[in-house]
């Protein structure tokens, strides 16, 4: 499943492109099924709710099939990305997912402080002093700008309750 160029390994572009085309095609099938459920015929109000999305689904399936065939037929031996590069991407994506997942429970300010701190310490290798300064400073500035200046409420957690914010 891995291609190799110059000794570097990673998923092949061809394979990922085919996978993406296939996924989009599956979305198209889901849209068609949902549209049929909503009704694709002609009702008292004219075309029914599923009429338009049904044809959109058909277009999705059709164009995905063509993209899938051209992906499989292409003489493309490039890598989609090296495993190391995908590791870099994951090193951002996984903490981002944790940051987003923690938000409903501990609020945006604390989760963003932890996220920024982790990012700077883990990937940036900064001194603790710098990490703490930015990780605490950024949410404070965010609070002042969004909540105080523009009156945009952001999700809060136990800490903010404790501080009475």
């Amino acid at each position, binding site marked *: 499943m891995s291609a190799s160029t110059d000794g570097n390994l990673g998923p092949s*572009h061809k394979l*990922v*492109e085919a996978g*993406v085309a296939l996924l*989009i095609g599956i*979305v*198209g099938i*889901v*849209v068609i099924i*949902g*549209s049929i*459920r*909503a*009704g694709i015929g002609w*009702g008292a*109000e*004219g*075309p*029914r*709710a*599923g009429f*338009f*999305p049904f044809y*959109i*689904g058909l*277009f*999705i399936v059709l*164009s*995905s099939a063509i*993209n899938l065939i*051209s992906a499989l037929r*292409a003489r493309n031996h490039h890598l989609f*990305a090296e495993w190391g*590069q995908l590791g*870099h*991407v994951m*090193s*951002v*994506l996984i903490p*981002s*997912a944790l940051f*987003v*997942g923690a*938000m*409903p429970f501990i609020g*945006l300010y604390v989760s*963003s402080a932890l*996220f*920024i701190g982790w*990012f*700077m310490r883990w*990937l*940036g290798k*900064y001194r603790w002093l710098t990490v703490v300064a*930015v990780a605490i400073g950024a949410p404070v500035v*965010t609070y002042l700008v969004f909540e105080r200046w*523009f009156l*945009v409420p*952001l*999700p809060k957690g136990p800490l903010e309750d404790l501080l009475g914010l």
Partner: protein
Amino acid sequence: MEELTNLFHGFAVALMPFNILVMVIGIVLGVIIGVLPGLGGANGVAILLPLTFSMPPTSAIIMLSCIYWGALFGGAITSILFNIPGEPWSVATTFDGYPMAQQGKAGEALTAAFTSSFVGALFAIIMITLVAPLVARFALEFGPAEKFAVYFLAFCSFIGLSKEPAFKTVAAMMLGFALAAVGLDSMTGQLRLTFGFTEMLNGFDFLIAVIGLFGIGEILLTMEDGLSFRGSKAKINLRVVLQTWKELPRYWMTSLRSSVIGCWMGITPAGATPASFMSYGIAKRVSKNGKNFGHGEIEGVIAPETAAHAAGTAALLPMLSLGVPGSPTAAVLLGGLLIWGLQPGPMLFVEQKEFVWGLIASMYLGNIVGLLIVLTCVPFFAAILRIPFSIVAPLILVLCAIGAYSVHNSTFDVMLMLVFGVIGYLLKKCNYPLAPLVLAIVLGDKAEEAFRQSLLASQGALGVFFSNGLVGTIMALGLIALFWSPLNAGYARLRSAATGRPRPAGPGYE
């Protein structure tokens, strides 16, 4: 004459102290957005859109459009100083801008880029001032069939003029339509494509999609290699500016040509990126200094910057007068208008004169303010780039999360944003265009409504879309735009057969 009176009234609105303040804030934020990787005009405006909910609509649109102008200016700074295009439309600027900076002419290159951007924008704004009211007046005659035909033309133009493979553009666009269809059907009140998930009742908000696709997706792409900016100092002093300004009138023909190309590409809606490349290519071909292009030729900076800015500005013409945005950023601005309860399109010029002309006047002022700010603050903006990416990236991600949350005060939207980020990363890596996807999410409902109303009126006969000269012409133009590539290739083949000369190789279907 009436337009001039309205414009002067618009200046009175735009010159209010608060509006001048939001203009300056917007430009500064926009330049920062244009400079930073992972933040672009579209998602920058999308993130900051919730901040404007508490403002009067005119001030809000002035601030957001100024962010857009700022982003257009900002892209040039990184291209010239670091050879890193901050925005896709700045790629062509690197060809000669960066070599000029290497030769110690960074000041000249930046002055030429900013001034050309200003000239391009000014040309487009004058065109909007003169043409938009006429287009709007003309569009007042439109019924549902004509409205759908305009949408059809816009979407076909995207497919026909896209540099990506046509079926990838179709797939991306149809995905956008499908996402727009999720939730409550506006015509029958029926739920569709929700599959029992209550979170899907309101459908997918385009702002979440924009922030995810353009913001998170871009960060993930950037993180593949990690970014290491080389620190570099840039100074612009008055002497360099004046010297460059003295030189620029010599290239008036390049500026004029690039402005026209930019306006055309902005309206059609091919966009600023192809406009900048096309303008650079033509300038290289017709210039007497063509051989110097790529080695630090000032004309190679003027051409793409003029065209990109003209296209970016002209994209607002169809948005204002027809309700059809010409670029992803214009689509976000259109979404903003809808949120503030304004209906973009021809009626805007009738019902919201003060708003429209205030916006148009602010375009003039915003670009003047923008030019002054970027000329004076280059060292500051260049310094931003020296902040390591391991600090900038998490801050951008947090900003994206805030933007996504504040659209509906929903943490589910933030999760959705992350999913869109992964989708954006995959689609971009696989060469799918994101702009048509966003445009379809924004316009999907309106296009569907126009389509269904037309069919209802005609009892299901598709002939309604060719039932009169106007709708037939627009639909025919749409079909020509849709098959532009094969038509062009066929014409070239016929010409080469007639002249007996072999055809130059063109870009093929990847």
